[in-house]
């Protein structure tokens, strides 16, 4: 008991902690924070609500930081030395998904990079990294940045996500510019008189926004969104099942320091120029894998029965040989059945391939399927 009490004392809280408790959130330790895994609605209904209307997520535990240099060219070059994404040609108000790599081409973390829309912010890039990785990420970046580019963690900001088909209409009520914003675009904005920074992106496969706001204004903003009939507070449990259905990677599970972006099926995030030029950590391995194909690949896996296959489950081929492992697995409320993803040897990665999953000591039939399990419904401007 004493140990548990001590452990919980060291957990950090987001600016929305009191609101989570008031809403009946079930608080659990996650990445060093006390976070709501679910609310009284429950994981299943929270998941389905997000796909039907709009869900509000507190993602303030994630690391927000600014990278500041003298001009965009300099800051972009400094970041490009650490990631394989195209940052130099990232336009103002544009957002991009990329990853920090180690010298072996393994993934240190995945992150979102945003170039502010205003010319006054030239030379600044806004980063959002994973909560569990932020300390190491910041140290890693600081150790590699040139003297004229600084990393400034933003510890006094909250991050909220509003996700779902009703997100644009809900946001529009208090932030008229939000519905006009394109997918993977970002802008400073005013939400019901509160200064914030919004991007049209998320982690559910649905249309939606991420809203960065000063910690002291976060609760007011969250309460305003929750006052809309279409909005429910959604916990980490549904966040995980939503992203799994959308085929999106969870760092530390589906990608880590041993997996390359090629193995992980994230080649789309590496622009042509960077594939040709290299100039990022682990470029030798990544360019070799692009040329020859990787030895293993991240795939979708659909169990045939109703039994979910969890992370760590061994994957075998039809002759019984071990060919891989599940890295995320569970039940997909919208898919209405068990779903999983994991790595298998490339020879077995073709959709339709039959495999066996070793669940509780018995081989259970499954097949390799295309990701995502639920089609993305990101906003596309007409």
């Amino acid at each position, binding site marked *: 008991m004493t140990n548990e009490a001590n452990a919980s004392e060291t957990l950090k809280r987001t600016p929305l902690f009191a609101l989570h408790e008031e809403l009946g959130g079930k608080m659990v330790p996650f990445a060093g924070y006390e976070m709501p*895994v*679910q609310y009284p609605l*429950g*994981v*299943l*209904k929270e*998941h389905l609500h997000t796909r039907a209307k709009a869900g509000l997520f507190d993602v303030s535990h994630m690391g927000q930081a600014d990278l500041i240099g003298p001009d965009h060219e300099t800051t972009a070059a400094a970041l490009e030395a650490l990631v394989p994404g195209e940052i130099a040609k990232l336009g103002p108000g544009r957002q991009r998904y990329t990853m920090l790599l180690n010298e072996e081409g393994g993934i240190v973390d995945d992150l979102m990079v945003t170039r502010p829309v205003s010319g006054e912010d030239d030379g600044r890039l806004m980063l959002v990294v994973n909560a569990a990785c932020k300390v190491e990420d910041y140290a890693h970046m600081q150790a590699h940045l040139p003297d004229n580019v600084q990393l400034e963690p933003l510890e006094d900001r909250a991050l909220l996500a509003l996700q779902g088909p009703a997100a644009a209409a809900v946001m529009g009520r208090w932030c008229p510019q939000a519905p006009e914003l394109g997918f993977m675009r970002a802008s400073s904005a005013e939400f019901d008189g509160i200064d914030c920074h919004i991007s049209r992106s998320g982690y559910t496969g649905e249309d939606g926004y991420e809203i960065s706001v000063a910690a002291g204004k976060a609760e007011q903003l969250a309460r305003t969104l929750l006052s809309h009939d279409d909005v429910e507070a959604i916990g980490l*449990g*549904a966040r*995980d*099942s939503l992203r799994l259905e959308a085929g999106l990677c969870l760092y530390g599970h589906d990608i880590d320091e041993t997996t390359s972006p090629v193995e992980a099926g994230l080649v789309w995030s590496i622009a042509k120029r960077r594939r040709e030029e290299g100039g990022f950590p682990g470029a030798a391995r990544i360019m070799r894998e692009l040329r020859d194909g990787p030895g293993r690949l991240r795939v979708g896996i659909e169990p045939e029965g*109703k*039994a*979910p296959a*969890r992370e760590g489950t061994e994957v075998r081929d039809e002759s019984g040989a071990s060919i891989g492992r599940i890295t995320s697995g*569970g*039940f997909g*409320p919208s898919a209405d059945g*068990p779903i999983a993803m994991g790595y298998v040897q490339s020879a077995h990665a073709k959709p339709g391939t039959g495999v066996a999953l070793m669940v*509780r000591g018995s081989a259970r039939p499954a097949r390799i399927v295309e990701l995502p399990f639920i089609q993305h419904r990101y906003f596309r401007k007409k």
Partner: protein
Amino acid sequence: MAEIKYTEDHEYAHLDGDVATIGITKHAQQQLGDVVYVELPEVGKSFARGDEAAVVESVKAAAEVYAPVSGEVTQANEELEGNPGLVNEDPEGGAWFFKLKLSDKSELDGMMDADAYAKFVAEQG
């Protein structure tokens, strides 16, 4: 008279003659959240006390259900296979997991009664 006993793993055993109906408690299903899958033992299978007898899974996690007493499975609640959500709705009633023909009734003496179990749950917070 029917007697209900509980384990620290939140299973209950509802005794009727020499057959015990086994399931998970209201508290257990609350902790687990929305149940999406139940795997039941085959009729005729024998368990020693503490053996893994069934599996119950929520969206997030899988949990084992242990045989609270030794015995042979006489019936499994097949309704749970098609309607696992019943475990959340009626855990200590219609959503029983399986029935065991007891091999040693005295094993029940080591289990908690309703009052002791309520106290145990309260202490766990």
